[in-house]
Protein backbone atom coordinates (compact mmCIF):
# COMPACT_ATOMS: atom_id res chain seq x y z
CA UNK A 1 0.00 0.00 0.00
CA UNK A 2 1.20 3.48 -0.79
CA UNK A 3 2.46 5.62 2.09
CA UNK A 4 0.77 8.94 2.57
CA UNK A 5 0.61 11.79 5.05
CA UNK A 6 -2.54 13.25 6.54
CA UNK A 7 -3.84 16.13 8.64
CA UNK A 8 -6.34 15.20 11.33
CA UNK A 9 -8.67 16.79 13.86
CA UNK A 10 -8.72 15.07 17.24
CA UNK A 11 -11.43 15.44 19.86
CA UNK A 12 -9.77 14.13 22.99
CA UNK A 13 -11.18 13.75 26.51
CA UNK A 14 -9.31 15.94 29.00
CA UNK A 15 -9.91 15.47 32.71
CA UNK A 16 -7.61 16.79 35.44
CA UNK A 17 -8.36 14.07 37.96
CA UNK A 18 -11.08 11.85 39.38
CA UNK A 19 -12.95 14.84 40.83
CA UNK A 20 -12.85 16.97 37.68
CA UNK A 21 -15.89 16.84 35.39
CA UNK A 22 -13.83 16.64 32.22
CA UNK A 23 -14.50 17.89 28.69
CA UNK A 24 -13.45 17.36 25.08
CA UNK A 25 -10.51 19.36 23.69
CA UNK A 26 -10.02 19.75 19.95
CA UNK A 27 -6.50 19.42 18.55
CA UNK A 28 -5.09 19.52 15.03
CA UNK A 29 -2.17 17.31 14.01
CA UNK A 30 -0.30 17.69 10.73
CA UNK A 31 1.73 15.39 8.47
CA UNK A 32 0.83 12.15 10.20
CA UNK A 33 2.30 9.21 8.31
CA UNK A 34 0.04 6.32 7.36
CA UNK A 35 2.80 4.05 8.71
CA UNK A 36 2.45 5.34 12.28
CA UNK A 37 0.59 3.48 14.97
CA UNK A 38 -2.25 5.28 16.71
CA UNK A 39 -0.09 5.79 19.81
CA UNK A 40 2.75 7.23 17.74
CA UNK A 41 0.26 9.73 16.37
CA UNK A 42 -0.49 10.64 20.02
CA UNK A 43 3.27 10.97 20.65
CA UNK A 44 3.39 13.52 17.81
CA UNK A 45 0.43 15.36 19.33
CA UNK A 46 2.09 15.47 22.76
CA UNK A 47 5.43 16.68 21.33
CA UNK A 48 3.50 19.43 19.62
CA UNK A 49 1.62 20.35 22.82
CA UNK A 50 4.86 20.43 24.82
CA UNK A 51 6.49 22.68 22.18
CA UNK A 52 3.49 25.00 22.44
CA UNK A 53 3.88 25.06 26.24
CA UNK A 54 0.59 23.23 26.77
CA UNK A 55 -0.09 20.17 28.88
CA UNK A 56 0.25 16.88 26.99
CA UNK A 57 -2.55 14.29 26.94
CA UNK A 58 -2.08 11.51 29.49
CA UNK A 59 -2.64 8.01 28.08
CA UNK A 60 -1.72 4.46 29.10
CA UNK A 61 0.74 2.37 27.08
CA UNK A 62 3.54 -0.05 27.71
CA UNK A 63 4.72 -2.79 25.35
CA UNK A 64 3.40 -1.29 22.12
CA UNK A 65 3.38 -4.71 20.52
CA UNK A 66 -0.17 -5.77 21.31
CA UNK A 67 0.47 -8.10 24.22
CA UNK A 68 0.41 -6.14 27.49
CA UNK A 69 -3.14 -4.76 27.54
CA UNK A 70 -2.13 -1.34 28.83
CA UNK A 71 -3.32 0.90 25.96
CA UNK A 72 -6.98 1.61 26.45
CA UNK A 73 -8.46 4.26 24.21
CA UNK A 74 -12.10 4.29 23.11
CA UNK A 75 -11.82 5.53 19.52
CA UNK A 76 -14.92 6.72 17.63
CA UNK A 77 -17.10 4.56 19.85
CA UNK A 78 -14.92 1.46 19.60
CA UNK A 79 -12.68 -0.03 22.28
CA UNK A 80 -9.14 -0.01 20.80
CA UNK A 81 -10.51 1.48 17.60
CA UNK A 82 -12.19 -0.13 14.60
CA UNK A 83 -9.83 -3.02 13.80
CA UNK A 84 -10.81 -6.54 14.77
CA UNK A 85 -8.76 -8.26 17.51
CA UNK A 86 -6.35 -5.34 17.69
CA UNK A 87 -5.07 -3.23 20.58
CA UNK A 88 -4.72 0.55 20.19
CA UNK A 89 -0.95 0.31 19.75
CA UNK A 90 -1.45 -2.01 16.77
CA UNK A 91 -4.08 0.19 15.13
CA UNK A 92 -2.25 1.98 12.34
CA UNK A 93 -2.97 5.35 10.78
CA UNK A 94 -3.59 3.83 7.33
CA UNK A 95 -7.11 3.31 8.72
CA UNK A 96 -7.64 7.08 8.35
CA UNK A 97 -7.52 9.56 5.54
CA UNK A 98 -6.64 13.21 5.29
CA UNK A 99 -9.13 15.53 6.99
CA UNK A 100 -10.69 12.89 9.27
CA UNK A 101 -11.99 13.79 12.72
CA UNK A 102 -11.35 11.21 15.45
CA UNK A 103 -13.07 11.18 18.87
CA UNK A 104 -10.98 9.62 21.65
CA UNK A 105 -12.46 8.82 25.08
CA UNK A 106 -11.24 6.87 28.09
CA UNK A 107 -12.80 3.50 29.08
CA UNK A 108 -16.10 4.43 30.66
CA UNK A 109 -17.34 2.32 33.55
CA UNK A 110 -17.80 3.22 37.19
CA UNK A 111 -15.45 0.36 38.06
CA UNK A 112 -12.76 2.05 35.90
CA UNK A 113 -12.58 5.59 37.34
CA UNK A 114 -10.62 8.13 35.28
CA UNK A 115 -7.28 9.04 36.85
CA UNK A 116 -6.37 11.65 34.25
CA UNK A 117 -7.42 12.30 30.64
CA UNK A 118 -7.44 8.87 28.95
CA UNK A 119 -5.89 6.98 31.87
CA UNK A 120 -8.28 4.88 33.94
CA UNK A 121 -7.78 2.96 37.16
CA UNK A 122 -8.15 -0.72 36.27
CA UNK A 123 -7.07 -2.14 39.62
CA UNK A 124 -10.59 -3.53 40.03
CA UNK A 125 -9.40 -6.30 37.68
CA UNK A 126 -6.38 -6.93 39.93
CA UNK A 127 -8.65 -7.34 42.95
CA UNK A 128 -10.83 -9.81 41.04
CA UNK A 129 -7.69 -11.84 40.23
CA UNK A 130 -6.62 -11.69 43.87
CA UNK A 131 -10.02 -13.05 44.90
CA UNK A 132 -9.47 -16.34 43.10
CA UNK A 133 -7.27 -16.23 40.02
CA UNK A 134 -4.50 -18.36 41.49
CA UNK A 135 -3.56 -22.01 42.07
CA UNK A 136 -1.82 -23.81 44.89
CA UNK A 137 1.49 -25.39 43.91
CA UNK A 138 4.18 -26.98 46.01
CA UNK A 139 7.47 -25.16 45.94
CA UNK A 140 10.65 -26.90 44.87
CA UNK A 141 11.98 -28.01 41.52
CA UNK A 142 9.79 -27.67 38.46
CA UNK A 143 7.96 -30.96 37.87
CA UNK A 144 8.42 -32.95 34.71
CA UNK A 145 6.33 -31.46 31.90
CA UNK A 146 4.47 -34.68 31.20
CA UNK A 147 3.78 -35.80 34.76
CA UNK A 148 0.25 -34.39 34.45
CA UNK A 149 -1.40 -35.65 31.28
CA UNK A 150 -3.79 -33.05 29.81
CA UNK A 151 -5.98 -33.65 26.77
CA UNK A 152 -4.88 -31.65 23.76
CA UNK A 153 -8.33 -30.11 23.30
CA UNK A 154 -8.52 -28.95 26.92
CA UNK A 155 -4.99 -27.58 26.81
CA UNK A 156 -5.92 -25.60 23.69
CA UNK A 157 -9.12 -24.24 25.24
CA UNK A 158 -7.30 -23.27 28.43
CA UNK A 159 -4.61 -21.59 26.36
CA UNK A 160 -7.18 -19.65 24.32
CA UNK A 161 -8.75 -18.38 27.57
CA UNK A 162 -5.33 -17.58 29.04
CA UNK A 163 -4.69 -15.27 26.09
CA UNK A 164 -6.75 -12.62 27.94
CA UNK A 165 -4.48 -9.65 28.65
CA UNK A 166 -6.86 -7.99 31.14
CA UNK A 167 -7.08 -4.78 29.11
CA UNK A 168 -10.69 -4.07 30.09
CA UNK A 169 -12.04 -3.64 26.55
CA UNK A 170 -14.83 -6.13 27.35
CA UNK A 171 -16.18 -4.07 30.24
CA UNK A 172 -15.58 -0.82 28.33
CA UNK A 173 -17.51 -2.09 25.30
CA UNK A 174 -20.32 -3.76 27.25
CA UNK A 175 -23.52 -1.67 27.35
CA UNK A 176 -23.93 -3.00 30.92
CA UNK A 177 -20.28 -2.34 31.87
CA UNK A 178 -20.03 -6.01 32.78
CA UNK A 179 -16.66 -7.69 33.30
CA UNK A 180 -17.95 -11.21 32.66
CA UNK A 181 -15.74 -11.92 29.63
CA UNK A 182 -12.61 -11.08 31.63
CA UNK A 183 -13.69 -13.09 34.69
CA UNK A 184 -14.83 -16.00 32.53
CA UNK A 185 -11.48 -16.12 30.73
CA UNK A 186 -9.60 -16.22 34.02
CA UNK A 187 -11.91 -18.84 35.54
CA UNK A 188 -11.92 -20.95 32.34
CA UNK A 189 -8.18 -21.04 31.96
CA UNK A 190 -7.74 -22.51 35.43
CA UNK A 191 -10.91 -24.63 35.58
CA UNK A 192 -9.90 -26.60 32.49
CA UNK A 193 -6.58 -27.71 33.94
CA UNK A 194 -5.87 -30.19 36.77
CA UNK A 195 -3.66 -27.59 38.47
CA UNK A 196 -6.70 -25.39 38.97
CA UNK A 197 -8.91 -28.09 40.41
CA UNK A 198 -8.41 -27.68 44.21
CA UNK A 199 -9.76 -24.10 44.30
CA UNK A 200 -12.19 -24.57 41.44
CA UNK A 201 -15.51 -23.95 43.25
CA UNK A 202 -14.19 -21.29 45.58
CA UNK A 203 -12.62 -19.49 42.66
CA UNK A 204 -15.81 -19.11 40.63
CA UNK A 205 -17.79 -17.83 43.62
CA UNK A 206 -15.17 -15.49 45.01
CA UNK A 207 -14.27 -13.93 41.68
CA UNK A 208 -17.95 -13.33 40.84
CA UNK A 209 -18.55 -11.80 44.29
CA UNK A 210 -15.54 -9.51 43.85
CA UNK A 211 -16.71 -8.56 40.35
CA UNK A 212 -20.08 -7.48 41.80
CA UNK A 213 -18.39 -5.63 44.65
CA UNK A 214 -16.25 -3.63 42.20
CA UNK A 215 -19.41 -2.24 40.59
CA UNK A 216 -19.48 -4.03 37.24
CA UNK A 217 -22.88 -4.71 35.67
CA UNK A 218 -24.66 -7.99 34.95
CA UNK A 219 -24.03 -9.86 31.72
CA UNK A 220 -27.08 -9.92 29.45
CA UNK A 221 -25.35 -11.92 26.71
CA UNK A 222 -25.20 -9.03 24.24
CA UNK A 223 -21.84 -10.06 22.80
CA UNK A 224 -20.18 -6.64 22.33
CA UNK A 225 -17.32 -7.87 24.55
CA UNK A 226 -16.51 -10.75 22.23
CA UNK A 227 -16.63 -8.40 19.23
CA UNK A 228 -14.17 -5.98 20.85
CA UNK A 229 -11.78 -8.37 22.62
CA UNK A 230 -8.29 -7.93 21.15
CA UNK A 231 -7.50 -11.56 21.98
CA UNK A 232 -10.65 -13.14 20.58
CA UNK A 233 -11.92 -14.54 23.90
CA UNK A 234 -15.14 -16.42 23.13
CA UNK A 235 -18.58 -16.10 24.78
CA UNK A 236 -18.31 -19.86 25.39
CA UNK A 237 -16.13 -18.89 28.35
CA UNK A 238 -19.05 -16.97 29.86
CA UNK A 239 -21.20 -20.09 29.53
CA UNK A 240 -18.45 -22.01 31.30
CA UNK A 241 -18.24 -19.41 34.10
CA UNK A 242 -22.02 -19.64 34.55
CA UNK A 243 -21.67 -23.44 34.73
CA UNK A 244 -18.79 -23.22 37.19
CA UNK A 245 -20.62 -20.69 39.35
CA UNK A 246 -23.97 -22.49 39.43
CA UNK A 247 -22.19 -25.81 39.99
CA UNK A 248 -20.28 -24.33 42.93
CA UNK A 249 -23.31 -22.69 44.51
CA UNK A 250 -25.67 -25.65 44.14
CA UNK A 251 -23.19 -28.37 45.05
CA UNK A 252 -22.47 -26.70 48.37
CA UNK A 253 -18.98 -25.37 48.44
CA UNK A 254 -17.99 -23.21 51.38
CA UNK A 255 -17.63 -19.55 50.56
CA UNK A 256 -14.26 -18.46 51.89
Amino acid sequence: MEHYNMNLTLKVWKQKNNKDKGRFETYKVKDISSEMSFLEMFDVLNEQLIAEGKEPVAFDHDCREGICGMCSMHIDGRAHGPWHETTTCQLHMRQYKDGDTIVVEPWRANAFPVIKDLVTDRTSFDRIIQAGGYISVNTGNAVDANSLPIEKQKADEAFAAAACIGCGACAAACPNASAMLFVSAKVSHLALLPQGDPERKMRAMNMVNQMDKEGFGSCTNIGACEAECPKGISLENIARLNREYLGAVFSGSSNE
Partner: protein
Amino acid sequence: MNWKQAFSTSIGKKLQMSLTGLFLILFLVVHCYINAQIFWNDGGKKFEEAAHFMGTNFIIRTVEIGLTFFLLLHIFQGLNLWLRNRSKRSVRYAVSAGSETSAWYRRSMGILGSLLLIFLVIHTSKFWIPNRASQIAGNGELPLYEMMKHEFQYLWVVVIYVLGCITLAWHLVHGFWSSFQTLGLTTHRYKGIINAIGVAFAIIVPAIFALMPIAFHLGWIS
Protein backbone atom coordinates in the same frame (compact mmCIF):
# COMPACT_ATOMS: atom_id res chain seq x y z
CA MET B 1 -23.86 -23.59 50.36
CA ASN B 2 -25.74 -20.37 50.23
CA TRP B 3 -29.16 -20.34 48.61
CA LYS B 4 -29.50 -16.60 48.85
CA GLN B 5 -26.27 -16.15 46.94
CA ALA B 6 -27.45 -18.49 44.21
CA PHE B 7 -30.10 -15.95 43.21
CA SER B 8 -28.79 -12.61 44.45
CA THR B 9 -25.41 -12.05 42.75
CA SER B 10 -25.18 -10.68 39.21
CA ILE B 11 -25.24 -14.25 37.86
CA GLY B 12 -27.98 -15.16 40.36
CA LYS B 13 -30.25 -12.41 39.06
CA LYS B 14 -29.62 -13.64 35.54
CA LEU B 15 -30.49 -17.15 36.70
CA GLN B 16 -33.89 -15.82 37.80
CA MET B 17 -34.37 -14.26 34.35
CA SER B 18 -33.31 -17.45 32.64
CA LEU B 19 -35.49 -19.89 34.61
CA THR B 20 -38.60 -17.68 34.56
CA GLY B 21 -37.96 -16.98 30.87
CA LEU B 22 -37.82 -20.69 30.05
CA PHE B 23 -41.05 -21.22 31.98
CA LEU B 24 -42.70 -18.44 29.97
CA ILE B 25 -41.42 -20.08 26.77
CA LEU B 26 -43.14 -23.33 27.84
CA PHE B 27 -46.28 -21.33 28.56
CA LEU B 28 -46.15 -19.85 25.05
CA VAL B 29 -46.09 -23.38 23.58
CA VAL B 30 -49.22 -24.37 25.52
CA HIS B 31 -50.99 -21.05 24.86
CA CYS B 32 -50.20 -21.27 21.16
CA TYR B 33 -51.35 -24.93 20.91
CA ILE B 34 -54.67 -24.23 22.65
CA ASN B 35 -55.42 -21.10 20.61
CA ALA B 36 -54.42 -22.75 17.35
CA GLN B 37 -57.53 -24.94 17.79
CA ILE B 38 -59.46 -22.08 16.18
CA PHE B 39 -57.89 -23.04 12.86
CA TRP B 40 -60.10 -26.17 12.70
CA ASN B 41 -62.70 -23.65 11.59
CA ASP B 42 -65.43 -25.55 13.38
CA GLY B 43 -67.16 -22.54 14.90
CA GLY B 44 -64.81 -22.68 17.87
CA LYS B 45 -65.92 -26.10 19.12
CA LYS B 46 -62.47 -27.63 19.62
CA PHE B 47 -61.10 -24.32 20.93
CA GLU B 48 -63.87 -23.91 23.51
CA GLU B 49 -63.31 -27.49 24.72
CA ALA B 50 -59.60 -26.85 25.21
CA ALA B 51 -60.21 -23.44 26.79
CA HIS B 52 -62.78 -24.95 29.11
CA PHE B 53 -60.26 -27.60 30.22
CA MET B 54 -57.55 -24.96 30.80
CA GLY B 55 -59.95 -22.69 32.64
CA THR B 56 -61.38 -25.28 35.01
CA ASN B 57 -58.76 -28.00 35.56
CA PHE B 58 -57.42 -27.84 39.11
CA ILE B 59 -53.79 -28.58 38.18
CA ILE B 60 -53.76 -26.04 35.35
CA ARG B 61 -55.26 -23.39 37.60
CA THR B 62 -52.61 -24.09 40.23
CA VAL B 63 -49.82 -23.82 37.64
CA GLU B 64 -51.46 -20.56 36.54
CA ILE B 65 -50.69 -19.09 39.96
CA GLY B 66 -47.04 -20.09 39.44
CA LEU B 67 -47.14 -18.59 35.94
CA THR B 68 -48.43 -15.27 37.29
CA PHE B 69 -45.71 -15.27 39.93
CA PHE B 70 -42.94 -16.14 37.44
CA LEU B 71 -44.19 -13.54 34.98
CA LEU B 72 -44.16 -10.83 37.66
CA LEU B 73 -40.70 -11.95 38.79
CA HIS B 74 -39.44 -11.84 35.18
CA ILE B 75 -40.82 -8.31 34.77
CA PHE B 76 -39.55 -7.07 38.13
CA GLN B 77 -36.10 -8.61 37.82
CA GLY B 78 -35.80 -7.53 34.17
CA LEU B 79 -36.52 -3.90 35.01
CA ASN B 80 -34.25 -4.16 38.04
CA LEU B 81 -31.36 -5.49 35.93
CA TRP B 82 -31.95 -2.83 33.29
CA LEU B 83 -31.81 0.02 35.83
CA ARG B 84 -28.94 -1.58 37.73
CA ASN B 85 -26.84 -2.08 34.61
CA ARG B 86 -27.50 1.45 33.41
CA SER B 87 -26.21 2.79 36.73
CA LYS B 88 -22.81 1.11 36.20
CA ARG B 89 -21.72 3.73 33.67
CA SER B 90 -22.48 7.17 35.12
CA VAL B 91 -20.60 9.06 32.39
CA ARG B 92 -21.76 7.72 29.03
CA TYR B 93 -19.75 7.58 25.81
CA ALA B 94 -20.05 10.56 23.46
CA VAL B 95 -19.75 8.13 20.53
CA SER B 96 -21.11 4.62 20.87
CA ALA B 97 -20.45 1.60 18.69
CA GLY B 98 -24.11 0.74 18.16
CA SER B 99 -24.66 -2.07 15.70
CA GLU B 100 -20.96 -2.33 14.81
CA THR B 101 -20.37 -4.61 17.79
CA SER B 102 -23.78 -6.02 18.70
CA ALA B 103 -27.26 -6.55 17.28
CA TRP B 104 -29.87 -3.95 18.31
CA TYR B 105 -32.32 -6.50 19.74
CA ARG B 106 -29.64 -7.95 22.04
CA ARG B 107 -29.11 -4.45 23.48
CA SER B 108 -32.83 -3.65 23.64
CA MET B 109 -34.31 -6.42 25.79
CA GLY B 110 -35.45 -3.87 28.37
CA ILE B 111 -37.33 -1.81 25.79
CA LEU B 112 -38.73 -4.87 23.99
CA GLY B 113 -39.82 -6.27 27.36
CA SER B 114 -41.49 -3.00 28.35
CA LEU B 115 -43.39 -2.93 25.05
CA LEU B 116 -44.48 -6.52 25.69
CA LEU B 117 -45.67 -5.49 29.15
CA ILE B 118 -47.87 -2.78 27.61
CA PHE B 119 -49.20 -5.34 25.13
CA LEU B 120 -49.87 -7.82 27.94
CA VAL B 121 -51.90 -5.25 29.89
CA ILE B 122 -54.08 -4.65 26.80
CA HIS B 123 -54.29 -8.37 25.98
CA THR B 124 -55.17 -9.68 29.46
CA SER B 125 -57.70 -6.89 30.03
CA LYS B 126 -59.54 -8.09 26.91
CA PHE B 127 -59.67 -11.83 27.61
CA TRP B 128 -58.02 -13.38 30.65
CA ILE B 129 -59.01 -10.87 33.36
CA PRO B 130 -62.72 -10.56 32.40
CA ASN B 131 -62.94 -14.36 32.04
CA ARG B 132 -61.45 -15.13 35.46
CA ALA B 133 -63.41 -12.27 37.04
CA SER B 134 -66.62 -13.77 35.66
CA GLN B 135 -65.66 -17.22 37.01
CA ILE B 136 -64.84 -15.84 40.46
CA ALA B 137 -68.13 -13.91 40.52
CA GLY B 138 -69.87 -17.25 39.89
CA ASN B 139 -71.13 -16.36 36.43
CA GLY B 140 -69.11 -19.08 34.71
CA GLU B 141 -66.73 -18.85 31.78
CA LEU B 142 -67.14 -16.24 29.05
CA PRO B 143 -67.60 -17.21 25.39
CA LEU B 144 -63.96 -16.60 24.44
CA TYR B 145 -64.37 -17.62 20.79
CA GLU B 146 -67.18 -15.14 20.25
CA MET B 147 -65.17 -12.47 22.07
CA MET B 148 -62.18 -13.04 19.77
CA LYS B 149 -64.44 -12.85 16.73
CA HIS B 150 -65.85 -9.58 18.00
CA GLU B 151 -62.54 -7.98 19.04
CA PHE B 152 -60.67 -8.84 15.85
CA GLN B 153 -63.27 -7.14 13.67
CA TYR B 154 -61.52 -3.89 14.57
CA LEU B 155 -58.44 -3.18 12.49
CA TRP B 156 -56.68 -1.26 15.29
CA VAL B 157 -56.93 -4.29 17.59
CA VAL B 158 -55.44 -6.51 14.87
CA VAL B 159 -52.60 -4.01 14.33
CA ILE B 160 -51.80 -3.92 18.06
CA TYR B 161 -51.76 -7.72 18.20
CA VAL B 162 -49.49 -8.06 15.17
CA LEU B 163 -47.11 -5.43 16.60
CA GLY B 164 -47.19 -7.33 19.91
CA CYS B 165 -46.21 -10.55 18.08
CA ILE B 166 -43.34 -8.84 16.23
CA THR B 167 -42.05 -7.47 19.56
CA LEU B 168 -42.33 -10.95 21.06
CA ALA B 169 -40.37 -12.43 18.16
CA TRP B 170 -37.40 -10.08 18.66
CA HIS B 171 -37.55 -10.59 22.43
CA LEU B 172 -37.40 -14.36 21.86
CA VAL B 173 -34.58 -14.31 19.31
CA HIS B 174 -32.30 -13.08 22.07
CA GLY B 175 -34.17 -14.45 25.09
CA PHE B 176 -34.27 -18.10 24.02
CA TRP B 177 -30.53 -18.36 23.39
CA SER B 178 -29.69 -16.10 26.32
CA SER B 179 -31.52 -18.28 28.85
CA PHE B 180 -29.46 -21.30 27.81
CA GLN B 181 -26.26 -19.25 27.88
CA THR B 182 -27.00 -18.14 31.45
CA LEU B 183 -27.49 -21.78 32.46
CA GLY B 184 -24.11 -22.50 30.91
CA LEU B 185 -25.55 -24.97 28.39
CA THR B 186 -24.32 -23.21 25.23
CA THR B 187 -21.13 -25.21 24.93
CA HIS B 188 -19.18 -25.41 21.69
CA ARG B 189 -21.10 -28.55 20.79
CA TYR B 190 -24.64 -27.30 21.51
CA LYS B 191 -24.57 -23.55 20.88
CA GLY B 192 -25.31 -23.88 17.16
CA ILE B 193 -28.35 -26.06 17.63
CA ILE B 194 -29.68 -24.01 20.58
CA ASN B 195 -29.40 -20.83 18.54
CA ALA B 196 -31.09 -22.45 15.54
CA ILE B 197 -34.00 -23.77 17.63
CA GLY B 198 -34.26 -20.36 19.30
CA VAL B 199 -34.52 -18.47 16.02
CA ALA B 200 -37.01 -21.01 14.62
CA PHE B 201 -39.11 -20.78 17.79
CA ALA B 202 -38.97 -16.97 17.72
CA ILE B 203 -40.32 -16.93 14.17
CA ILE B 204 -42.85 -19.79 14.22
CA VAL B 205 -44.68 -19.19 17.53
CA PRO B 206 -45.25 -15.42 17.13
CA ALA B 207 -46.24 -16.03 13.47
CA ILE B 208 -48.95 -18.49 14.54
CA PHE B 209 -50.17 -16.04 17.18
CA ALA B 210 -50.21 -13.18 14.65
CA LEU B 211 -52.23 -15.29 12.20
CA MET B 212 -55.11 -15.58 14.68
CA PRO B 213 -56.34 -11.95 14.69
CA ILE B 214 -55.54 -11.72 10.95
CA ALA B 215 -57.58 -14.86 10.21
CA PHE B 216 -60.57 -13.53 12.15
CA HIS B 217 -60.32 -10.10 10.60
CA LEU B 218 -60.13 -11.36 7.04
CA GLY B 219 -62.92 -13.84 7.64
CA TRP B 220 -60.78 -16.97 7.04
CA ILE B 221 -62.42 -18.27 10.20
CA SER B 222 -66.13 -17.76 10.66
